């Protein structure tokens, strides 16, 4: 007899915590739907979540632990896999030291505290992650300027809200928030090289040339200072290095900035007047323009606009990040310390990273390290989630996986990394594992898994098994199993997992004492204790290229002047499409099939000049290589700019981006401002 049911559970496809409704038949999901509202959890299922059943039941899902034997894989038991991997890790540590093992964490981030502890007690400095191209550069710039890795924009108390390079279309409720902000009479400034749903509702859209955000910020600062609109009192009391900064921005005249950024002088002046006109909060995307060779400096320049106008640390501006009232261990704050950080695989190439993001390493050079055995030989690569498309010239990561002596990849799908691994371990998707969620309003909830995971395990459970097999200890690693881990994450709430499971609607944590929010007196944890116009951390390394203590604008157009003669277009990769989450959903025909062809986007004027029409085949060339794409016309782009989605499964455009084209401070690749040429295929 068939058994139908309706369950509320977690989508979690993108690493978020959206509650969804699921219809089930005999334990299988038949369809999902948005909940009208959920009292405690976000309920913003999106286009990706709508394809959840195709994601969960995809034939490429890894179902069992698999071991490489020759050129093929055989199914093994969890016991055999774990004991074999543990024995290998202990043996190589004995022979070559712990640093010869790299522990890599892909996305999402919920298991990182456990994983960092595993790497730490094993003794390796090489705990690294996808944040090497995503979050860390933002955190670095914030840390350098503000002494805090993240500041939260106050969208309710502000008069003006600035969104600097972020497109909320298809994201969890952001567009609704922006519409509400506008409806409340607040002004909206959007900085984006591309016209989006958000730029359409903006009071001012600054359509900046890719990678020139720093020049724009410095130019706006110049107008503000020239007008005498800076917040003198704030600057005197809370900042360091203002005089040098003021001298430096004088060079950024509206005329010059207009030429660099492609933004009319009138709009630069208008932006300055708006930013100086009241309480301003700003939202910067996590990576966007940080993926450029001057990314950290550009974001420093943007953040310093807020410092210049006193729009930081107080109501209506950007406030020091308020930790959620109920703090669990599922966000990667306070990671275990890395031993010997200066001996990690980056070997001090990015010293400012080590000074600011010290609990994980920069792994942008992972392929070089493994292939060249420099600074030392990496023997083991252990990965929980590994997408080779994250790196520029990711084909070299595949080569590195082939070369490294031993690799373990825990993944959802059989991907390119799995194919080269020695062990492939199946991870549960979020809908396949129980979760403790800390919701709104001091509320804790136990969210039961939607479907049976079969032989797959939660990543954390695998980490615990490895730690137990190696006799490694730590507060997380000493938990006997996944349930005990969940219970441990709740240790500061006074509630046990058993108690929580007994109350499906969850429990209010009335007695919790949220950490005291930081303010201007307690929150500025820079070396000088002030917001730094001149970075005293970067100053320590000012003999290195690009390490200017001031937020100096280095133009990538100068760096690539020679290449631009042959490759005159600006190539921007990494801008998102709502139905993809990087390359996590390209396998799902319902999503990848929304657009028939893998495409590059250019404006109609450029297309006409090149003799191209929508749907035509075109060859995209960079100094590194060529790929063929279908042409899509997008008049939301300025002439000379090419947008290509980064990895849609068929083609990975980041294969064409020079692996050495990096921000010298963060090590981030220049995905958002490289060069290319386009011509009609078959010519």
């Amino acid at each position, binding site marked *: 007899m068939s058994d139908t049911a309706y369950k509320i559970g977690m989508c979690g496809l993108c690493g978020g915590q959206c509650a969804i409704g699921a219809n089930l038949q005999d334990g299988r999901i038949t369809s999902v739907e948005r909940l009208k509202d959920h009292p405690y959890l976000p309920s913003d299922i*999106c286009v990706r979540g*709508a394809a959840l*059943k195709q994601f969960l*039941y995809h034939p490429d899902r890894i179902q069992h632990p698999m071991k490489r034997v020759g050129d093929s894989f055989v199914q093994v038991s969890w016991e055999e896999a774990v004991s074999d991997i543990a024995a290998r890790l202990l043996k190589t540590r004995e022979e070559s030291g712990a640093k010869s093992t790299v522990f890599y964490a892909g996305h999402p981030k919920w298991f990182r505290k456990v994983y960092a502890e595993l790497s730490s007690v094993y003794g390796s400095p090489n705990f690294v992650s996808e944040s090497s191209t995503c979050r860390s550069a933002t955190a670095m710039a914030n840390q350098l300027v503000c002494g805090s890795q993240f500041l939260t924009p106050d969208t309710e108390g502000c008069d003006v809200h600035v969104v600097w390079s972020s497109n909320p279309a*298809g994201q969890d409720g952001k*567009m*609704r928030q922006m519409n509400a902000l506008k409806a409340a009479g607040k002004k909206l400034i959007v900085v984006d090289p591309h016209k989006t749903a958000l730029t*359409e509702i903006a009071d001012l859209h600054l359509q900046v040339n890719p990678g020139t955000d720093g020049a724009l910020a410095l130019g706006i600062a110049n107008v503000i200072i020239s007008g005498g609109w800076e917040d003198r009192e704030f600057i005197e009391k809370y900042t360091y290095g203002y005089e040098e900064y003021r001298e430096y921005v004088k060079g950024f005249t509206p005329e010059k900035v207009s030429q660099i950024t492609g933004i009319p002088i009138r709009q630069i002046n208008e932006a300055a007047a708006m930013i100086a006109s009241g309480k301003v909060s700003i939202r910067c995307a996590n990576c966007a323009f940080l993926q450029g060779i001057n990314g950290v400096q550009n974001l420093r320049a943007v953040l310093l606009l807020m410092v210049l106008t006193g729009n930081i640390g107080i109501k209506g501006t950007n406030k020091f990040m308020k930790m959620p009232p109920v703090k669990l261990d599922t966000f990667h704050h306070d990671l275990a310390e890395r031993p010997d950080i200066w001996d990690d695989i980056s070997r001090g190439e990015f010293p400012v990273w080590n000074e600011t993001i010290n609990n994980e390493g920069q792994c942008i050079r992972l392929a070089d390290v493994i292939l060249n055995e420099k600074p030392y030989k990496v023997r083991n690569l252990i990965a929980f989630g590994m997408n080779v498309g994250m790196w520029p010239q990711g084909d070299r990561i595949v080569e590195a996986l082939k070369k490294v002596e031993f690799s373990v990849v825990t993944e959802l799908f059989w991907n390119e990394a799995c194919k080269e691994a020695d062990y492939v371990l199946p991870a549960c998707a979020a809908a396949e594992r129980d979760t403790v969620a800390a919701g709104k309003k001091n509320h804790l909830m136990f969210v039961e898994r939607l479907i049976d995971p079969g032989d797959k395990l939660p990543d954390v459970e695998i980490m615990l098994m490895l730690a137990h097999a190696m006799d490694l200890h730590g507060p997380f690693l000493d938990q006997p199993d996944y349930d005990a881990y969940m219970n441990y994450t709740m240790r500061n709430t006074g509630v046990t997992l058993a108690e929580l499971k007994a109350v499906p609607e969850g429990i209010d944590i009335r007695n919790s004492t949220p950490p005291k929010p930081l303010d201007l007196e307690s929150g500025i944890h820079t070396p000088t204790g002030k917001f730094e116009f001149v970075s005293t951390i970067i100053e320590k390394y000012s003999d290195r290229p690009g390490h200017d203590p001031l937020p100096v604008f280095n133009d990538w157009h100068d760096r690539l002047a020679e290449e631009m003669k042959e490759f005159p277009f600006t190539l921007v990769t990494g801008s998102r499409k709502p*139905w993809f989450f990087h390359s996590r959903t390209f396998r799902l025909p319902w999503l990848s099939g929304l657009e028939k062809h893998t495409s590059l986007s250019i404006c109609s004027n450029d297309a006409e000049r090149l003799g191209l029409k929508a749907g035509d085949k075109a060859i995209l060339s960079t100094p590194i290589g060529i790929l063929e794409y279908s042409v899509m016309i997008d*008049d939301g782009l300025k002439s000379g700019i090419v947008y290509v989605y980064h990895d849609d499964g068929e083609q990975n455009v980041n294969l064409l981006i020079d692996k050495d084209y990096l921000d010298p401070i963060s090590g981030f690749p220049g995905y958002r401002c490289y060069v290319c040429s386009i011509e009609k295929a078959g010519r």
Partner: protein
Amino acid sequence: MRIVSDNKKCVGCLACVVACIDHHYPETEKDAVSGRLYKLTTGPSGFTKYVTESCRHCENAPCIDACPVSAISRTDSGWVIVDQDVCIGCQACASACPFDIPRFRSDGKMFKCDGCEGDPSCVKICPNGALKLL
């Protein structure tokens, strides 16, 4: 009854298109046809995005009259639906429809919005409230 889209609110994320497929097909269906159709449009500013539309469930639906095998009918609550067991794939409905709505699956059968028994999955999922049931 019909579903209308406020294209000003629509951000072009296509959640409605996929939610429609999710509601009507098993995950193994690679050839799924959505009842919500979409096309790329460019606004006066150059902003380019997808907008969607679906069957208007017309009061005097010409497709009902055009169907030679009476596969198309109206439900008591006003939705115009197609019985795919009866549809012969002749595409007469497509010729009759003034809005170019009927689409045909690889088995030749017509597919279009059926109103999801009065609680459309596209309306439910729309993240910005662009879709409404009228």
